[in-house]
């Protein structure tokens, strides 16, 4: 347990050293052009980040026992499900840190950081399993993931003389979730997506990463790295096209359009 927390502290310090308090990438105007795109079918999501966010939004009070995650699990998804609480402990800790801009949402009562996730390769559907669990004294949240895809895309910024890149790794799929709580039952189906985006200059080396963001953390895009000094240096040198201060555009944080 002590070892787990020491790793957590090291990761927080590492990310704190890389992060800034503002969304620095709004300083530049990018003109993203697609360079590479692949769409792969997945048996299950690699990490259930979209599932966790959907469950947290739909059932803010959380389950009283656990989250049961049904899918055609792979080794990755089995392993990743064990790290869900640790991952959200890290996110909560980062959000509390005054040096890091993560999400405007208060993660104080974030049940995702202590409720265990049980990955289950069941032939039963989400609703069927919820029916079986309904007469028990505890009421878990049951989440099913299917029709999953992984998209990997690389974009280049035409405004930077094709030297600034954005790598996006996106998971998409269908989520069905049921909270088998007789007093306050809940069921919902939704199309969900989760992504990690890395914007870097020339090479994806730590000192050249302009931003690293994750979506969704409590329904928001969280910037783990947002290197304002690097962006300012590139803007001053004319390597990036600067955005006039009056031309602030909230959509500058949106992902470029993926090719079909």
């Amino acid at each position, binding site marked *: 347990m002590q070892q787990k927390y020491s790793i957590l502290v090291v990761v927080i310090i590492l990310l704190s050293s890389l992060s800034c308090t503002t969304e620095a990438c709004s300083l530049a105007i990018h003109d993203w052009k697609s360079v590479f795109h692949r769409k792969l079918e997945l048996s299950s999501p690699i990490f259930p980040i979209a599932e966790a966010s959907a469950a947290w939004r739909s059932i803010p009070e959380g389950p009283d026992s656990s989250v049961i995650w049904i899918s055609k699990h792979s080794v990755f998804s089995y392993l990743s499900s064990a790290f869900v609480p640790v991952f959200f402990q890290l996110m909560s800790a980062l959000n509390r840190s005054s040096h890091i801009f993560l999400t405007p949402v208060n993660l104080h009562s974030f049940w995702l950081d202590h409720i265990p996730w049980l990955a289950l390769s069941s032939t039963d*559907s989400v*609703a*069927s399993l*919820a*029916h079986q669990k*309904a007469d028990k004294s505890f009421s878990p949240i049951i989440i099913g993931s299917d029709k999953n895809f992984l998209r990997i895309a690389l974009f280049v910024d035409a405004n930077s003389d094709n030297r600034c890149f954005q790598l996006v790794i996106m998971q998409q799929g269908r989520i*069905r979730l*049921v909270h*088998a709580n*007789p007093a*306050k*039952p*809940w*069921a*919902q*189906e939704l199309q969900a997506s989760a992504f990690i985006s890395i914007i870097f200059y020339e090479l994806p080396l730590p000192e050249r990463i302009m931003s690293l963001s994750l979506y969704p953390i409590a329904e928001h895009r969280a910037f783990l790295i947002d290197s304002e000094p690097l962006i300012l240096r590139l803007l001053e040198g004319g390597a990036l096209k600067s955005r006039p201060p009056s031309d602030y555009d909230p959509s500058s944080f949106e992902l470029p359009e993926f090719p079909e």
Partner: protein
Amino acid sequence: MRFCKKFVTFLLCFFYIFTPLTTTGQSFSAIDLERLLRNHPLTKSYDHKSGRFKNTASEIIPPEKLSQQIAQLESSLSAAQAKKSEIIRSSVLNDFDAEKEEQLWDKLKTIDNTIEKQQQELAQKKQLMHTDGIPDISTVVEIIKGILRDVRIDYRKERPPNSIVINRLPRFPTPPPTLENGADGLLSFFYRGDPAKLTTYLKHAYAISLLFDASSSPILYQREGD
């Protein structure tokens, strides 16, 4: 030789007169902007008294009526949420039929869509209560933008491709404004390039504005790609 010279002159005159007409004639088209605007259904719902469009988000709602609408929406939202809970209780927790599972998810999706719409509407109405039922002027601007967008789509259907669109000319002939001391119009500034001409012209702006007031249909110039 003399006949040949005459023939060449004739040909030159012919092309000089007719060629510009045939080339420029294809690149212009006329529209009736006033008719297109008048025919739009939203223009018909414009209320001159309030300056808002009836039955749209821009319409002013008296606070008493707004309170009633909020109460109705809250009640309807609670009913939809209760119905959803009841469906989950009866079709998932208490009893479950695997063959009807897809129908169940479809039913839940329909209720979720209704709940989402009602929640959005309720949030808008509650926001409106803070301004005594008077929606922000931006709601009117959005509707006008929508009308103009529709009108553009309509006139693009009527015009040949790659053409410059000119609105129908003013319905009534408008006399040019009379300028004091025999001052010239703006045209002379463009021809002569004398800044003093422009200064004189601007001094008579009041008279020139009358010209535009009298023109019911302004000329619209559309550049390709706009």
